[in-house]
C-alpha cells in the first residue's frame, strides 16, 4: 500500500513536471531523453565515487589493523553518510565536467 502510494504520487508529480516544462517553460520535448541520459550519468558518477570511497575505506581499515595491531571496525563502511558524501562529490564532478565542456565549446 505504502509503495503503491509513493509510486503513484511520484508518477503524478512527474507528469506535473512534464506539463510545467512543456506548457510554462516551453522546453523542447526532444530534450527529455537527453536529460534522462545526463541524470543517469550523474547517478553513475555518484556510484563510482561511492565504490571508490568504500574500497579505500576498507583498505585503510585493514591497513590500520595490520600496521598498528589495534582493532578498527570494518562496519565504518556500513553507513548511509557515504552515499550522501559521494552524491556531493559525484554531482560536483559532473557539473565541473559539464561547465568545462561548455567553456571549451565557446572558445
Amino acid at each position, binding site marked *: 500500500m505504502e509503495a503503491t502510494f509513493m509510486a503513484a504520487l511520484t508518477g503524478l508529480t512527474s507528469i506535473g513536471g512534464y506539463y510545467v516544462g512543456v506548457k510554462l517553460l516551453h522546453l523542447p520535448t526532444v530534450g527529455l531523453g537527453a536529460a534522462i541520459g545526463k*541524470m*543517469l*550519468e550523474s*547517478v*553513475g558518477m555518484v556510484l*563510482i565515487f561511492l565504490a571508490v570511497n568504500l574500497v579505500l575505506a576498507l583498505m585503510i581499515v585493514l591497513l590500520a589493523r595490520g600496521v598498528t595491531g589495534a*582493532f578498527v571496525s570494518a562496519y565504518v563502511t*556500513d553507513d548511509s553518510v557515504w552515499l550522501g558524501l559521494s552524491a556531493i562529490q559525484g554531482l560536483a564532478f559532473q557539473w565541473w565536467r559539464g561547465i568545462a565542456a561548455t567553456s571549451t565549446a565557446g572558445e
Partner: protein
Amino acid sequence: MGSRVDRVARLIGLIGVVGFLVTAFTPLAHRLNLATAVPAELVPSDAIVVLGAWVSPSGTLSSESLRRTNHGIALYRRGLAPTLVLLGGSASGGPSEADARAEQARLHGVPAQAILTETRVRTTREEAARVKELLQSKGARTILLVTNAGHLARARPLFERAGFHVYPAPSDSFVEASSPESRLELMRVLVREFFGWLFYRVAGYI
C-alpha cells in the same frame, strides 16, 4: 575519453536506478533473503549462543540485537538448552551489549546462573574463539546459534571450526517487508553480509 567516461557512467547509473526501483518496489530482497537463508534446526542442545549486533553508548540495544536476544530467550524458555550465552561489547565505553541483554533475559525469567556473558568480543571470529573458551570447560559440544539469516552463512562455519556441532536458529521473522525503506534496508544487510562472507572466505577464516 569524455564520451567513454559518460557511457560507462550512464551504464552504471542505469544499473543503479533500476536496482534501486526494483529493490524498493518489488519483493526481490525478501526472496533473496529466503533463498540464501540457512533453515532453522531447533533441536535440544548444550547451549544457546546469541551473537552480538550493536548497542548505543547509553546501553540501548539496537533492534537487531533485541530481536536476537528475544529469540535466544524464547529458545531457552522452550527448554532447548540449559545455558544461554549472550555476547556483545560496548560502544565508546558505555554499558556492554552482553550485560544489557543479560538484564533483559533475567527480566524474562531466565535464571542468572543459566546466563553466560562475554563483553570483550568485536568480530564474529572473536566471538567463536571466546565461546569456545567459555563452553569448553562445561563440555558443551552442540549449540543453537542465534543471529540473522544472512550472518549465519559466515558465522556457522566459524563455530564449526571452533569444534561445535552447530544448529542454526535464525532470528529473522521472514515476514515480507511492506515499506520500500525496509526493503532497501534488507537488501543493504544482504549485500553487507555477502561481502563479509566473501572477506572471510578470501582471508581463509571459513
